[in-house]
């Protein structure tokens, strides 16, 4: 999987950081998303999908690779 995160769209809600703190962090000043790992291991897929679903602003996108 490959994740992209757009701080410009991010509202700093932090649902992603709550759901997958090993993948997403937040800037201390303005709360916008910091991607810790753009390609986390496969077992994190469920958590990352949840983070995408719960992102209120659509700032996080996930591309799931076949195979």
């Amino acid at each position: 999987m490959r994740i992209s995160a757009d701080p410009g769209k991010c509202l700093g809600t932090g649902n992603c950081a709550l759901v997958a703190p090993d993948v997403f962090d937040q800037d201390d000043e303005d709360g916008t998303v910091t991607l810790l790992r753009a390609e986390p291991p496969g077992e994190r897929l469920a958590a990352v999908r949840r983070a995408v679903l719960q992102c209120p602003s659509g700032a996080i996108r996930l591309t799931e690779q076949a195979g």
Partner: protein
Amino acid sequence: MTTDAQTLPLYPWTDRNRECPLDPPPEFTQLRASLRLPYVDMKNGHKAWLVTRYEDVRAVLRDARFSANHDRPGFPQMGPVDRAVRPGTFAHMDPPDHTRLRRILAPEFMPKRVEALRPRIQQIVDELIDQLGNTAHHVDLVESLALPLPSRVICEMLGVPYKDHQFFQDHTRNLMSQATSGTASNSSFEELMSYLDRLVTLKAHEPGEDILSRLGDRVHDGTITHREAVGMAILLLFAGHETTANMLGLVILALLKHPVQLAQLRADPSLISGTIEESLRYLTIIHTGIVRIATEDVTIGGQLIRAGEGLILALASANRDDGVFGDPDIFDIHRDASSHATFAYGIHMCIGAHLARAELQIAALSLIQRLPELRLAVPFDQVPFRHDMFIYGVHSLPVAW
């Protein structure tokens, strides 16, 4: 036959489910199964489409064509009288104003900031429970714990000086109290607005590490106006106080009503997080729903919604949708309730969600651990529920231990 000639069903329904006051009205179950969205009369001059299914509620909340701007003509406000949006009330605005204001507050409420507050929240809970013990082994939990806790937490987060905490608590208490006369609560509102107005000005000159100082900085650099800063402060006070207070009363009640699960939680405190998520789902205190207005024609749930028409998103119904939650009417602290709709979705998703979770987790767990004999002091059917308030809960929760 035109729409005007038809009698529309009225909404909201005046009482919660009579069988069990912890369940939403039974009408929702049929509506979720129906192929149509009902158009309802909101009893205040407004009409709106009632959205009851989880997927439809989510679809609306994530779609920028549905506006939260309460100043739009025809916006289906829920209250008896339409009010203009006060400066700073970003919950009732669209981008870009919403974005500008929310971004300032977002870092204050993010998960890691809330985690850092946990020890302080625990201290406040401990002090409040200590004080319970000083009375004759029965109290109203609403008065003694549920109301003061969120009030004290928000007080500290805002940066209200300690010497003013009592003043702040007393007036906040007045605002939230059912028993307060109209005059008393208006005057408390004026007192708080005026107090916050002075405090924002003070913080702009002598900033600390708190929310009001942060707002003062933004006034200073021109991002927001002074009036917006005061409006945002009062919004946080309203939004974060009555909600959490009502949830805490209901959570304790729900646990007392499910003693097997209460015992499981006592034996395994790691269950508290799941317990609070399930409580948020099961209890859905924003029980009449939230509102939006369409800015374009959009089809939702097979229904064409025209631009300018209003919608009510029935969060309590979405949370009992059996397409999402198996056996949805069962309170089960072991289920994964994390996709509940209680904090809504989209750009207005509750900014205080993480804080609410922390307060509820800490307070509920501490209470049941420190008072192992905790029980209701009145029969369940005598607990007074807030059927007619926008935020559901109990007016009082007499308990003994």
